[in-house]
């Protein structure tokens, strides 16, 4: 673990969205902190609230969302800032990488315009200085110098190149924290490997803290220091990603690991989690995982607190311990 006061500290974050006339919880009471240089992963299936957590942190929740709790960036509370001030603090302090670079980059603005906008707004650079810096950044993310990418448009670039541009924009104002939401999911395997390597290298180079959102524990295990496993808006387990994979303590984490075929798999059948992820607005009371859980009993009608099990934190009345069979 890396020492030092956290770059990001989120406490009791809850998010609710208006869905057919009522407020439906999508994230419940989530707390996490990221130290300088640390990479923390939010892992879970679709609808678990991992992306919504990221959007709440950067101050861009969907319209009508109710966000409560505390979000501190480098010691400064963000939730009480005026929108303009929050944009200023967040714009410089947090770089964001979205899953789909095709839709998150502007189709009719040149790459140069998109890159220099934030440089001029956040760093107050002149047009010329901003272009020079943009050119530098594109080289830094491994894009070919011989191509005049500043005057290119998104549609002229491949998926991997677009994601490199996104990364260049995300780090352009020297943020303290990068939030990456499934940045490699839309990419092919060989390109995914390139982009992951780039993120890992950038992090090592500049000591960036990172919040990495993914549905894949195995991707996360490669470079994240800690993983938080979410299910139905709730944190189920937190620990090192390798420990989550090898010795999961929460029955949901265990189920997730057993459901995926692994390299060199010798099982004749997979072990699926029965049932399905409950839809938003239909989450059960108590432990959210209990209707699908093999260890469920009457205690699970009450929501368990996060408790330490071995080196992990687990929200479960009946955590798996020992050989976790």
């Amino acid at each position, binding site marked *: 673990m890396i020492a030092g006061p956290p770059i990001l500290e989120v406490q009791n974050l809850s998010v609710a969205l208006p869905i057919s006339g009522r407020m439906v919880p999508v994230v419940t009471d989530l707390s996490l902190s990221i130290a300088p240089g640390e990479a923390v992963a939010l892992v879970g299936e679709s609808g678990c609230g991992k992306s919504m957590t990221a959007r709440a942190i950067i101050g861009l929740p969907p319209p009508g969302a109710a966000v409560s709790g505390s979000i501190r960036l480098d010691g400064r509370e963000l939730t009480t800032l005026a929108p303009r001030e929050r944009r200023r603090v967040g714009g410089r302090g947090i770089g964001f990488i979205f899953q789909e670079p095709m839709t998150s980059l502007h189709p009719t603005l040149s790459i140069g315009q998109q890159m220099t906008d934030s440089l001029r707004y956040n760093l107050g650079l002149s047009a010329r200085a901003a272009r020079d810096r943009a050119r530098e950044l594109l080289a830094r993310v491994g894009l070919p110098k011989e191509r005049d990418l500043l005057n290119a448009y998104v549609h002229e670039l491949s998926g991997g190149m677009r994601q490199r541009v996104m990364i260049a924009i995300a780090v352009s104002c020297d943020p303290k924290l990068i939030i990456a939401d499934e940045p490699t999911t839309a990419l092919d395997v*060989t390109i995914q*490997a390139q982009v992951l390597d780039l993120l890992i290298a950038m992090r090592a180079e500049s000591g960036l803290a990172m919040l990495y959102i993914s549905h894949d524990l195995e991707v996360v295990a490669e470079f994240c220091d800690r993983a938080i496993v979410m299910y139905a808006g709730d944190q189920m387990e937190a620990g090192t990603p390798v420990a989550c994979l090898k010795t999961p303590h929460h029955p949901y984490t265990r189920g997730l690991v057993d459901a995926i*075929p692994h390299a060199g798999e010798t099982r004749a*059948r*997979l072990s*699926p*989690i029965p049932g399905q*992820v409950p839809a938003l607005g239909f989450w059960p009371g108590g432990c959210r995982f209990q209707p699908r859980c093999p260890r469920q009993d009457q205690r699970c009608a009450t929501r368990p607190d996060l408790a330490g099990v071995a080196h992990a934190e687990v929200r479960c009345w009946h955590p798996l311990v020992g050989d976790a069979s």
Partner: protein
Amino acid sequence: MLAPPGGRRIVTATLLEVAGLSKSFHLVHAVRDVSFAIGRGETFGIVGESGSGKSTTARLVLRLVEPTTGLIRFRGQDLATLSKGALRRERRHMQMIFQDPYGSLNGRMTIEQLITEPMEVHDIGDAAERRRRVGQLLGEVGLPEAARHRFPHEFSGGQRQRIAIARALATEPQLIVADEPVSALDVSVQAQVLNLLLDLQQRHGLALLFISHDLRVVEFLCDRIAVMYLGNIVEEGPKTTIYAAPRHPYTRALLDSAPGRARKGAALKGDIPSARNLPVGCVFRSRCPLAFDRCAHEAPKHRMVAPLHRVACHLAEE
């Protein structure tokens, strides 16, 4: 002519045999000279990245897309020469499952109508028998009998994929072509559908052509695997050989790039070239770490390097 390059011997009785299959869309060479065979009851996987031609190959096999050249022999008949009517009759024995369980089921039809439709098209049974069969099929894919009167939108992605499987099974096919059938599903539900496919395959002796970009899923499910790159099969062999001892530099790179396999860092530089502008010689040479002069002017032919294992690479000669 029908024997795939290298005179490969098929262990089980051949159900589907494809030879020299190519498809161009205007200037784009989507599939080039693809040959493979699938035995009865076998699971054959095609892996590749986007633009590799794997989905086009799946559609060509069913003649949902007309091949530019090549032979497709299914149950001993050349599909290309069949008349429209004969082709339709033959389709009863081959069915397809698509990636998107939201877009592939007509939302205005009940589940019963969806599952009966293929039986009506192929004139199987009378109305009462078809209704009985719907119940039986729903049971097979693990859905309640009551599902028959409901509509697709009332079901989750995993359940819809079960409905698509029930529909595919309705005509008792011998071959199911599944194009990324679990890619759109959450991991916890993927396993349910993969297990179901395995069970049904064993119970009915189905052959499965499984198309996927997910190396972990393919390794789990398939007996034999073909690796495609830019419209070409670059390597084909038994699952265990391909994963333990790949011979083509692209297969190696693909495996080295996959998460969960002790990745050693990005194995390949650069992007997949456009299929409009294919490299001359070996299609992989622009990204191949081992490319040498010969690769630039001569496309490698397939060579058998072990029983059932063939590779299209000049370096596989030694």
